[in-house]
């Protein structure tokens, strides 16, 4: 299991090449999040992390997912700094005996990374930069995995 934050670009296919080679691994899911061109209006994304804090938080979520879904292997790589359209922002790969666990773990980790992981994101365009916050649907996606809340009677 590994979690990496890095300023350097990475190639999702190269990361998949060495991943999940256990003899009893039957299912490998990968997710690559890529910076969209937004019709040419986006010059770059800027992603800020809190080194030490961000990696630890992601590492804790990763370890919880590894246990919950009985993963054989897990890899999370996340870009920071300035990211150009077409470049990968995040890569999550999960390996398990069966596909249900591999899919759900990757899906859950991505919901977490997109809405609750400690990153701050700025979109740079022709009109300058603006800080962006999660879309409402990102919160909703992440909430799918929460335990049911206790309600006062």
């Amino acid at each position, binding site marked *: 299991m590994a979690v990496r934050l890095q300023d350097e670009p990475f190639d999702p296919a190269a990361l998949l090449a060495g991943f999940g080679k256990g003899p009893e691994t039957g299912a490998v899911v990968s997710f690559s*999040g890529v910076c969209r061109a937004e019709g040419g209006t986006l010059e770059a994304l800027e*992603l*800020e992390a*809190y080194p*030490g*804090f961000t990696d*630890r938080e992601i590492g804790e979520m990763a370890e919880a997912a590894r246990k919950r879904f009985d993963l054989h292997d897990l890899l999370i790589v*996340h*870009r920071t700094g300035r990211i150009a359209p077409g470049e990968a*922002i*995040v890569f999550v790969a999960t390996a398990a005996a069966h596909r249900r666990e591999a899919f759900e773990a990757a899906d859950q980790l991505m919901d977490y*990374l*997109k*809405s*609750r*992981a*400690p*990153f*701050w*994101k*700025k979109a740079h365009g022709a009109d300058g930069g603006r*800080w*962006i*916050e*999660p879309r409402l649907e*990102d919160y909703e996606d992440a909430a799918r995995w929460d335990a049911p809340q206790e309600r006062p009677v």
Partner: protein
Amino acid sequence: MSRVLLFGRLRDLAGWRERQIEPSPRTLAELRARLAHEDKALGEALAHPSVRIAVDQQIAVGEVVLGEASEIAFMPPMSGG
């Protein structure tokens, strides 16, 4: 000496990302007051309930005695990756 870190739009608002504060503030309230004294807009932004605070990389809630704390981070709502 304490290190203060600002993230996201707080960093843009203040015009700085990291500062050394000397002497170390004894409480979070004292730190807030000293920052607000220099920069009223920043002081108000830091006081917004959406801003989370980490003291030595642990989330802090409510008023906090900083003690030997060396790193205080102010974090606006996280955008996710």
